[in-house]
């Protein structure tokens, strides 16, 4: 590839200039600082983690820690709960889509409602957890309101009933995360040409039909992005919720123990960093599944653009 300007064969708006030859050192200069930081934080940690998981107090013990982890019912329970939380993701995506569509149909007050919808995303998790911790008590404000409205059948023990607690947690997470999806989807919808919608209206298509055949295909990529992002959240970024909502107990019983909590407790409360490291390695390998999905998505889109 010779230097100079290559004719643009890309979609309009895409960058057309590609500098020099593949062997150029220039880009590496730009990328270097980022790589340095990432190597220090991620590279070192992963290697050290693998190493630690194979030792106990300095001595090599092979896979002993892994054996102990896998035979611990609490660990598998934690993984199971992460899995159950994943079930909430499609529900979350559905809610987000539904509300985005609602907003899309709204002419007046769109800005206001959109701002309101996104607000939970701005709040800190500890704040959210404390407030919900107060609101969701069995005899707390929400249940009191439900009871006075004659709905005491659904005034459950949101935080205290082990059968319900995990779903309560999922609910709180969804409450906070849905705004993000709404904003993403709505923005995408707004870029779809209005002609399509007008045509549909002329054809006499109703609400559901319109959105099923026009909106859904248009938002599929962004929906996919959102689903993957939230799935990652449910596996890797729920520690804060559990820690604050259950005072670090993962209760009631073990109903809300997730793998992050398991790792944290072993490392920092029970002084068993090697076991924690082994569990962390397993969690890391598990998330590699997501990495593969993510990488495929990225490579596809990058190849399109370059």
């Amino acid at each position: 590839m010779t230097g100079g300007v290559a004719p643009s064969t890309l979609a309009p708006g895409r960058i057309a200039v590609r500098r020099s030859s593949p062997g150029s050192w220039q880009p590496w200069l730009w990328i270097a600082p980022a790589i340095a930081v990432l190597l220090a934080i991620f590279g070192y940690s992963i290697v050290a983690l693998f190493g630690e998981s194979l030792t106990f107090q300095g001595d090599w013990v092979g896979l002993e820690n892994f054996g102990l982890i896998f035979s611990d019912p609490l660990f598998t329970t934690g993984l199971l709960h992460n899995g159950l939380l994943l079930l909430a993701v499609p529900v979350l995506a559905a809610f987000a889509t539904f509300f985005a569509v609602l907003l899309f149909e709204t002419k007046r007050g769109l800005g206001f409602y959109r701002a309101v919808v996104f607000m939970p995303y701005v709040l800190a998790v500890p704040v959210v957890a404390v407030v919900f911790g107060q609101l969701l008590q069995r005899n707390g404000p929400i249940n009191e309101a439900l009871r006075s409205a004659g709905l005491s059948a659904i005034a459950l023990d949101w935080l205290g009933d082990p059968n319900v607690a995990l779903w309560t947690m999922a609910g709180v997470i969804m409450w906070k995360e849905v705004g993000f999806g709404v904003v993403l989807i709505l923005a995408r919808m707004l870029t779809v040409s209005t002609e399509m919608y007008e045509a549909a209206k002329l054809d006499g298509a109703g609400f559901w039909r319109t959105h099923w055949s026009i909106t859904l295909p248009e938002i599929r990529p962004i929906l996919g992005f959102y689903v993957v992002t939230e799935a990652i959240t449910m596996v890797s970024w729920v520690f804060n919720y559990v820690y604050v909502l259950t005072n670090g107990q993962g209760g009631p019983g073990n109903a809300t123990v997730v793998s992050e909590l398991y790792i944290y407790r072993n490392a920092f409360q029970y002084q068993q960093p090697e076991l924690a490291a082994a569990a962390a390695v397993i969690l890391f390998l598990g998330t590699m599944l997501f990495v593969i999905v993510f990488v495929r998505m990225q490579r596809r889109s990058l190849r399109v653009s370059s």
Partner: protein
Amino acid sequence: MIPLARRYGGPTVRYVLLSVFALVALLPTYVMFTGAFKSQDQFIRSPFGLPLEPSLDGFVRVWSAQFPVWFMNSVVVTGASVILTVAVAALAAWGFANWSFRGKSGLLAVIISLMVIPPVVLLIPLFQVGAQLGWISTYRLLILIYIGLMLPFSIFMLTNFFSTVPGSILEAARVDGASSWTTFTRIVLPLSKAPLATLAIVNVLWAWNELLLALVLMQSDDKKTLMIGLTGFQSRYSLDIPTVMAGMSIATLPLLVVYLIGQRSFIQGLTAGSIKGE
């Protein structure tokens, strides 16, 4: 088809749904802000009502604790880590967007995939090495780790955006003899104000609200960030709800203000950066 019902039923149903949704979204914030001004009894008796006899006791109690120190710590850590992250990510993103080179797509994919790794996985080895270096309870360790964690998403977002800079402008600059550095600073950056601002806001949100890492890495009381202080606060004063709510309100206020002001361009930039390339 029932055109009549559709004409009158539709919008009404929609507004009802929207209002319910807005109520649910706003309720906890509302409870928090009003609770801060109530007394303990008032809160228990009427948690949803407006404060009948507003009092500032909660705020006073909160402020006399370590609150100001924690607040400053959060400002320092968040500010430094976000500024550095955006800078380093912008450099790297330009490197990815403007050149093609061998291994580029693979490297980029790997970097972006780092988002998937749970922070707790990194925490154990990083904590241990931090202890060895004597960097526990120092700003630099926490800031460095935050930068590391924020980089993947930042690089992802900025690379996507920089890829959309029109080639014609860059070509014109090249013809004028501009170096890549000048092109970057004089042309690309000014064009990227919206996504850069958005990225900064997203990162500020993340860093300000981060709990786990700060909890473990900032041991000494004078270095704790606001989030740590607040969570401990809650168990210490769990009988004094107004104080807890006051603390939470103060903690949330800066972010809310930033969000409300920058809301429009924020959302614009967020969607511009994320949805391209999908």
